[in-house]
Structure formats: C-alpha cells, structure tokens
C-alpha cells in the first residue's frame, strides 16, 4: 500500500484503507440498528387515528411481532409454533429482564412489551399472547398501529 513518487519518496495510499474502515463501520451500525429495533417489515400494521408517536426514551422494550397467521416471530429464530413455546419464551424473557432489574437495584423490571400484530391476524393469537405476557409477569404493554390521518 505504498506508491513511489517521481522524486523517489514513498507515500501511503490511504484509499483502500478508508474503504475498508468505512465498510466495517457501516456493517456494525447496521447490525446494531436492526438488532435494537427487532421489528420486521413482514408485519402489516392496522390503521388507527388514536395512535400516538412512540416515546423515543423507551429503551427497555421487547417487540413481539405476530404475522398474518398469528405466529410469533422472534429475531434470529424460527416463528414460534405452539402456545407452550410462546409461554417458555416469554417466561425466559421476563426472568432475564428481572435479573437485569435486580442488578440495577429495582424491584420489578420496567420492560415494555410492544405487540406488533399483522392486521390480517385473528384476534385469538393476539389475546393468547396478551394473556401469556401477563402470566409471565410483564406489566407494561403497547399495541402498535400505523398512524392514520384524521
């Protein structure tokens, strides 16, 4: 990575180095961004006029994406097929959140469960997941919808 100039001196060629660094920076930014969002574009949210912009300060969140078949999609895993799988997943998530809260000196986790269900999904799986969330111990919920102009 060095060029010999006309006067016989050597100067480093920074262009490939910069390329590589920028590629790496972009890769890590994108990975961090998608992992933090945990959202999927496969879910078509319903429309609602009373939906309000989400609070950007809420960082302790768990996204539950339900596809049109009512299956719970979790980042980096296959969709959860049975209710017992959902139950196990939610309990393990709650236990993780509770351990983190206890380490931070809090009694209960302040994790907000954000439910992003597809507009064509049946109400039954949504209700069952709400019920299992509550059974697992979560106490804060949000439903997500696309903001509809009045």
């Amino acid at each position, binding site marked *: 990575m060095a060029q010999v100039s006309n006067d016989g001196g050597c100067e480093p060629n920074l262009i490939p180095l910069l390329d590589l660094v920028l590629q790496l920076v972009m890769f890590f930014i994108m990975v961090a961004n998608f992992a933090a969002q945990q959202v999927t574009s496969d879910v078509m949210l319903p429309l609602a006029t009373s939906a309000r912009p*989400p609070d950007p300060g809420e960082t302790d969140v768990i996204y539950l994406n339900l596809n049109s078949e009512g299956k719970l999609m979790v980042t980096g895993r296959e969709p959860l097929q049975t209710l017992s799988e959902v139950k196990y997943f939610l309990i393990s998530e709650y236990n993780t959140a509770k351990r983190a809260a206890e380490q931070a000196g809090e009694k209960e986790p302040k994790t907000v469960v954000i439910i992003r269900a597809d507009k064509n999904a049946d*109400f039954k799986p949504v209700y069952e997941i709400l019920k299992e969330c509550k059974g697992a111990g979560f106490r804060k919920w949000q*439903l997500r919808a696309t903001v509809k102009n009045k």
Partner: protein
Amino acid sequence: MKKKHKGEGPLEVQLNTVITPMLDMTFQLLFFFVLTYSPSAAMEGKMDFNLPASGDYRARAPEDVNLDKPSDTDLALPAQLTVLIKTAHTGDKSVDGNISALVVKSTDGETALPNLEALENFLRHKVKEEGLSNKDDIKIEAESKLKYACVIDVMDACLKSGFTRVGFNPPPDLTTTN
C-alpha cells in the same frame, strides 16, 4: 500530496484534493440511509392500552385460592360497558373475519349498533351521561376469528369517544367451547 524539491531552494509542497475517498464515504452513507429508511416505521404509533393490576397474592396452595380476587391473567378491566364484536362464519374469505355485528352491553341491557361511526357516537353520548360512574374503562369482547384490524378499529372508536383505558374480555366463542 506531492513534494517537489527544486535545486537548493525550500521544499515545495503541492496539495491536490483527493476526491476518491470522499466519494467513497458519500456513497457509503447514502447506501446506509437508503437501507435503513423505512417510511412505515416513521408512521408507526402506539395505542393506549391498559390491563388491570395483578392480584395482590398468587395462590400457592389450592386452599389459598380466593375466587373473589381477579385471576392474574385476567385481561378485563372493571368497566361498566362492554363492546361485543361478532364476525361472520360463512366460509367466504372476503367476508369472514370482518365485523358482522356490534353490541354494547351494559347494566341497562344490550344495544346493537350498525357501524363504527354509530358506536363512537353512542359511546360519546354514554361518556357524557351522568349515569355512568366509570368513564375511563371499557371492555372489548371480540370473537376469536375476528381480524385484529377490526379490533383496533373498535379500540380506536372507544378511545376517540372519551374512554382512556381499554381492556379485553376472553373471546366469547372460546369460553363457550372450552
């Protein structure tokens, strides 16, 4: 950057603008923003949604069960009004899952409403009435096969009419079959 040394004079440095890395960076940034831009995420909003507080105690033995206390997984609020949403079961995919009937249940009886607009007006009228002591909570009782979008439509109507907290009853068709 080039260095020229002319005879015994001072070292002359010639600066050239190197555009290539800047262009590289610009394209990288452009590519990043194109990939991460999501108009649907920008339009995404949260819905006010509350569930009742859990029971004070969980039964650790059968004899500890107190039937007077709400179950810990109960999603219903102590509301005076319940909106029952029924759906069609015709086998026609274009019809099934949509709202076929809207009924508001209260202590006064049941009131059938033709559409969401009528529901919103009815609930708004109820909120203004003096007879309703709990003007914050309302329950939704939707059939299990109803599309989630229809539930959100009804929830939207409830919130717009003045109620601040919406809870869910178990789907009536599930409680009767189970």
